[in-house]
């Protein structure tokens, strides 16, 4: 890649995530809320999301590692995840949370297990993309939007 513009890269990444359904218009709204009064807002929210969700998954793991999984203990955690991913604009992860709820309502333990794993997987994908996004943001902030100087 001869000429790279970090901002363009970031925009392309966000566009692709929107197209592929990893992000939705809620994320667009987050971007619109970022202005001179809250300059690092999106970055902050993404960082919060990653940190907070990671913690929740730790707790989920604790519950899931028990001999007999009590999904009642998983419920509030997934509920929390659903709130976070709704707010950040992550429809795939939200859908996985909804599926968990459906399996729970149907008392389908196997389904619940698969749903939890699906939530986790969606989160991992999302997290990876968010990492890239944050990296790009950082590049933009550090070096401006110019092309990299062959560093």
């Amino acid at each position: 890649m001869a000429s790279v513009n970090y901002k363009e890269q970031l925009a392309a990444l966000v566009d692709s995530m929107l197209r592929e359904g990893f992000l939705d218009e809620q994320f667009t709204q987050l971007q619109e809320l970022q202005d001179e009064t809250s300059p690092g807002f999106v970055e902050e929210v993404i960082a919060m999301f990653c940190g907070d969700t990671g913690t929740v998954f730790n707790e989920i793991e604790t519950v899931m590692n028990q001999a007999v999984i009590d999904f009642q203990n998983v419920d509030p955690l997934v509920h929390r995840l659903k709130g976070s991913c709704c707010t950040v604009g992550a429809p795939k992860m939200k859908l996985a949370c909804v599926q968990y709820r459906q399996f729970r309502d149907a008392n389908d333990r196997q389904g619940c297990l698969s749903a939890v794993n699906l939530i986790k997987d969606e989160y991992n994908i999302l997290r990876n993309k968010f990492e890239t996004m944050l990296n790009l943001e950082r590049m933009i902030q550090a070096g401006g939007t110019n092309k990299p100087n062959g560093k």
Partner: protein
Amino acid sequence: MVRAIAGSSRRRRRQRNFDSNFPKGMRVMAVDDDLVCLKFLEILLLHCGYAVTATQYPCLALNLLRQNSDAYDLVIIDVQMPDMDGFQLLESIVVEMDIPVIMLSIHGDTKSVTKCIEHGACDYMVKPARFEELKLIWKHVVKRSMTETTFEHPLATAALPLGLGDGSSQASGNDHPDQGKGKGNELPTSVSDEGSSLVKKARVTWSSDLHAVFVRAVNTVGLDRAGPKRILEMMGVPGLSRQNVASHLQKYRRALRLYGPGFFNIVQGDAGAGASGGADTSGVKAKPQRTMALALTRPVPDNGRSTEDLRVAGFPNNQTAAPVSQTPMFSLPMSNQNALVQKRPSTSLGSQQTIRQISSPSYPASIDLTGPQATLDYQNQQSFVSALDQINDFIRNTSQNLLPSSIPPVPTFASGPSTGCTTGFVTDANSSLVQHGNQQDQSTTPPVSMMSSKQDVQWGSGAYTKTGPSSGAQNNEATLNMDNHAVAPLHGTSYAESAIYLSEPSIADGTFLFDDDNEGDDLHAMLRQFQNK
């Protein structure tokens, strides 16, 4: 005799000025245990022009409101919170302070909404909150103001601006019989402030003493036979209207019906106090009211966490919320409060764009961003990864200041020999991702330290410098002060520290039932080790 005059220790009639900028500067408290949602809500509220106090802790919120309910016009509460049920907080606020409360939830079904309204919420929102809705929440404050002003202050209602009130026509000629009990010359001066400003709502604050008087009157009359007028006569509190008593009686009855006589004890974390009189709901006995009166003056226990956080965190001006026994900063009048809080430099939002976020460092101060790409546990999703790999590779190849390791992967919930879980869950044939070879991560990385990296995040020396202490942001307990916006949340402390801090409250204070024989739990393993010695 209990006098219901401003300044009386028994009951305060709140004076709230709707100034000419209203609803800008309206003071909103937001309570949500989810940091992401809280942050988003906070920003939206600020964009609406409100003054925001945001906290993750319902207990802390309740304490703040009790210390100075005058300082807040409206409260927004998440329905589902681990520390305190949103409905309990709602009821407490409605009964004790009568501040309009809006509930917030991810569920939007009829049942949930109905339940919230029945518990006293004035409105209901589905997450994520929408800017268009938040722009109009001030109407609840005005509506509440009009409802109470109508019956109490004929002079005040006469000053109501035109076009606002359905209640004003009622009120202007109102000669409520109960007014004879009160003294006309007791009207606070601010209420007579006419002109373009909205008339203040003289909100009745049901202090513990006043409530005790109320309950005594109810007991004497009999809960089932009690009517507002009779209770009002028995209470003999000048300035109190039948309407006040009626609405309070309604809430009281509802609280008793829903939660039983022990409601106030439970809400205040005093669940062990058996003095509530047990399940006797046929009539409220003297014991419950005494306990309730005492309990109401006691600060709500917050698991010892939130006040600690406040002390350690340091607010924007290194001020912390004082314990109940002291005069807290939050009891200062609004103008002083503004002075204490760093304002966001904004030309568009006005001078009242202040925010205090009272949060704990409940998410890691630094995000660990390095880490081998191979830790991805979904390698069979190559199509999604490959493009990113190219970008990541390019960044790594071209950048000199690589960020530290990435966020450690969340372990796969797979069964397998390395996990030590046998019957807990079965390898799901559908979940091919589950089968992935991430078991090594799971086996070697204990849960609590899953996210620890020991490295600080170096965000560069630009505007987003996040290492080292910055003004007002101490440790990793981020008070998300707007001026430290870029700094506070991603402070340069050890990820391990923040992770542990983060994990402990979450797990220890959670409502989860952990099996003591959990093989995979390092903490329990350690405990067993000591026990076996």
